[in-house]
């Protein structure tokens, strides 16, 4: 298989100059995980919207968009793109770092431009452009908001995501930001970025602790679950719930001045749009675009919420 792929890569490399001469059409392959949860749904939406926009803006560019439900399917997608479409650039949001590293390296060997989004590859130096969110920053911004919203200090509970590096980095950033701010973390449990799981975890937190000042739900789906539990229990000791990632319903509530949701912290699924746009610019112009592009996590407050509200996005 490996010989086959590298043989193929050679063929593509030889064919590339010939292709470049006739018509100058360049192909960008985009490989992303399927919309299996809210954030990924938003990411799919922005990928599609960006492709639609760029196809109109640059007639000389062609796009191939593939969504995969598991890493093996994603590897197949990428191999197919090289074999059948001779892609000039690949924008990939790896499902998992390890299994995708080899296949992306093969694409790189074919001479294509590589843009990696959000999840880095297991080996450094393969990608030409790296576009990602800032997980420690996401935690830090959340922690700083928590500290400023509870100036006297207070007792909070934390809902964590699926146990992953992403979640660990966020929580570490959060803990560093609230250190010495007199904020006591009563408990942390995994809500797995899932509404139902977070609902039950929050119910149990409410039974366990008679006084909770605030909740760091660390994600808007988890915040929705936690809010449901708080509302049902009729508890009024909880001043607010801080979610994250910028789901449109939650940003709307912040925009409308809902006291329970005073803020949000972005981790935009639209980062895929950034990656595709920059890659396109790199192919059609002389502007240098290689390097790292880290999209900061921004605090959304009632004042600036309007610019982070995307009513058409599914997320």
């Amino acid at each position: 298989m490996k010989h086959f792929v590298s043989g193929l890569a050679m063929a593509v490399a030889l064919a590339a100059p010939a292709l470049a001469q006739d018509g100058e059409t360049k192909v960008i392959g985009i490989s992303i995980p399927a919309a299996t949860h809210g954030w990924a749904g938003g990411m799919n939406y922005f990928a599609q919207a960006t492709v639609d926009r760029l196809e109109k803006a640059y007639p000389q560019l062609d796009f191939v968009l593939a969504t995969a439900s598991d890493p093996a399917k994603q590897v197949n997608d990428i191999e197919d793109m090289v074999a059948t479409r001779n892609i000039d650039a690949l924008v990939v949001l790896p499902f998992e770092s390890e299994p995708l590293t080899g296949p992306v390296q093969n694409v790189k060997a074919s001479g294509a431009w590589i843009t990696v989004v959000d999840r880095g590859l297991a080996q450094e130096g393969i990608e030409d452009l790296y576009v990602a969110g800032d997980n420690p920053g996401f935690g830090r911004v959340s922690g700083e908001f928590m500290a400023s919203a509870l100036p006297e200090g207070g007792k909070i509970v934390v809902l964590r995501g699926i146990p992953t590096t992403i979640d660990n980095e966020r929580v570490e950033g959060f803990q560093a930001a609230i250190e010495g701010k007199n904020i006591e973390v009563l408990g942390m449990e995994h809500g797995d970025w899932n509404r139902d799981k977070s609902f039950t975890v929050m119910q149990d937190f409410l039974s366990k602790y008679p006084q909770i000042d605030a909740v760091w739900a660390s994600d808007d789906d988890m915040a929705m679950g936690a809010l449901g539990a708080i509302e049902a229990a009729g508890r009024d000791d909880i001043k607010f719930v801080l979610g994250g990632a910028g789901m449109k319903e939650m940003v709307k509530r912040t925009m409308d001045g809902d006291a329970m949701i005073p803020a949000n912290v972005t981790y935009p699924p639209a980062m895929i749009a950034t990656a595709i746009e920059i890659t396109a610019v790199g192919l059609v112009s002389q502007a240098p675009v290689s390097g790292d592009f880290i999209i900061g996590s921004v605090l959304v407050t009632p004042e600036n919420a309007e610019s982070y509200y995307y009513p058409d996005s599914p997320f």
Partner: protein
Amino acid sequence: MSDVTASAPRRIRMTVIGPILALILLVVAGAMMNPNFLGWDNVTNVLARSAFIGIIAVGMTFVITAGGLDLSVGSMAAFIAGLMILVMNSLVPTMGVGVPVILVGMAVALLAGLAAGLLNGILITRLGIEAFIVTLGSMGIYRSLVTWLADGGTLSLDFNLRSLYQPVYYGGVFGITWPIIVFAVVVILGEIVMRSTAFGRYCAAIGSNDQVARYSSVRVDRVRLLTYAALGLLVGIATIMYVPRLGSASSATGMLWELEAIAAVIIGGTVLKGGFGRVWGTVIGVLILTLIGNLLNLTDFVSPYLNGAIQGAIIVLAVVLQREGKARG
């Protein structure tokens, strides 16, 4: 049948005690670890939480007793929830926010559940395809359909409608919420059907030997079909209780419910390969599963990373308790 009665006194006693013992141990452990554990709020939380899986598991008890299996119930619940929300939202402009819309939504849930169950049942009985394969297929189909309906995101019920519908999950009579009441009614009916009707006996007969059942003039295919249809209907009922809780459905809704329901049935003493079923045992199984999660949240006993391991160990232990009884008997 005769060999069941032969060793009955000892064997039945031990298999009965197994799951109950496990449940009592959990309750005692919980009460010692956290004073709030036996508080009214926590008890109602746990019971209401058990209702979804519980209602489905009662139906699953019949399917498994008759020698079948249904892996599609979790995805089916997600799909029905999505469908229900879409239908109700689309009716709001014409019918306004009111009880009729919710009643239509409930009817949609029941019909969709029944249809989905019948479809599984027909494929299994009429076309003779293995239940595992049919329901594995429909599991994938319903899961994709709900993702597609939600456009990869989350379907949310109209806000005003949700406020009106909410009492179905949160409200109740005499402090006992509706999900608990519905769960109790389903269990009582299930117990009666399993113990005292021809249908219950047919299920057990088919599960232990469908050829013999056929020669004894039991209409095997029809009984099997009915077990899947009933399970589908119960999934619809569970969904009616589920939607008002958070008013949303996404591709993550009902994840792994099928395995929880099957585990609850087996913990409760129903035989996985069919032939013997116990509805009240299933209830104990569901309570054990829900209590484990509840206890792990209420205590800081172990690292949350190990929650799954504790759950797994207790499930196996609960079943071992019964098997030991059988071995000795």
